[in-house]
């Protein structure tokens, strides 16, 4: 009688764990994808910009007004370059260069060469948002969301150990894979760090 009650308790716990694991797993799909995709993107930050597409071009423009720091010049430059976004500000950068800032565009005007060096930045669709969250640029509330997500991941990994019974369970086969997964980072640390 005692044995049966113990067995029931274990069975209930097993089913409860499965249910929690399943539903939390569903809940975490979006976040896991965001963090994993962004993880790959920022892992290669040395070879590309994971958040922005930066386009650069050079234009030689003649017949613009002489005073590069006048409103008249700014309007002529904007028109010549076909910039449609809002003008933000203008700054003298060096003796012969003036910078013009627009929404999403920076123009470096070289007075000597009469050349405009245009740099346009656009957020990468999807990836910008994923990186924004993954790198916790938002801080504040997102810090706590990320903490909760991390706790849920810990739960998923540990509860997963008890999901399967029998020959493929943790006790008979699973522990080997778990051990291999732990050895991988440890051996990396031992040999490379």
């Amino acid at each position, binding site marked *: 009688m005692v044995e049966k009650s113990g067995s029931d308790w274990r069975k209930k716990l097993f089913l409860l764990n499965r249910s929690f694991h399943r539903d939390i797993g569903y809940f975490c799909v979006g976040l896991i994808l965001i963090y994993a995709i962004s993880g790959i993107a920022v892992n290669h*930050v040395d070879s590309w910009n994971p958040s922005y597409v930066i386009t650069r071009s050079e234009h030689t423009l003649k017949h613009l007004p002489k005073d590069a720091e006048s409103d008249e010049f700014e309007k002529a430059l904007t028109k010549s370059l076909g910039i449609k976004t809002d003008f*933000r500000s203008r*700054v003298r950068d060096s003796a012969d260069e003036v*910078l013009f800032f627009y929404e999403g565009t*920076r123009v470096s005007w070289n007075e000597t060469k009469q050349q405009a060096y245009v740099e346009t930045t656009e957020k990468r669709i999807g990836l910008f948002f994923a990186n*924004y969250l993954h790198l916790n640029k*938002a801080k*504040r*509330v*997102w810090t706590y969301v990320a903490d909760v997500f991390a706790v849920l991941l810990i739960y998923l990994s540990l509860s997963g150990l008890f999901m399967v019974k029998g020959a493929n369970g943790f006790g008979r086969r699973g522990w080997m894979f778990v051990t291999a997964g732990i050895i991988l980072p440890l051996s990396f640390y031992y040999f490379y760090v």
Partner: protein
Amino acid sequence: MKSLVFILFTVIGLTSFAAEKNLGKGAKFTDAVPMSKIMKTPESYVGKEVTVSGTIVDVCAKRGCWMQLTTDVGNEKVRVKVNDGEIVFPLEARGKKAAAKGEFKKMVLTLEQTKNHLAHIAEENKKKFDPASVKEPMVVYQVQASGAVIEE
């Protein structure tokens, strides 16, 4: 279920709107010390907390780990640096006014370090750079920021 979706969107909304203006511990435009004043006696500011302000001329494109602000000293700029990830300066903030608060640091570079430093800046700006054109080592002053504010 509806309330869960509402909470999720509220959280996302709050985080994305609140974050852009004040970064890290924040800063006040009114606390800004003109660079012309700092550069009269830079040594007296080294190691101390200062607030600088100006127009954002450039931002680290990949990591947002530094920005350059205009100053009231000719065409000179002041570099505001943060530790990776602590604060991320948004690239799209170029051309906006900003103030940054942090430790004023002095870095005495060797000739080789000066060349590397200038080569790195040129590379980031996709500009040509000739190391042979650098004849003297530089002293670089920068603000190691703990907070910043960017005008919307």
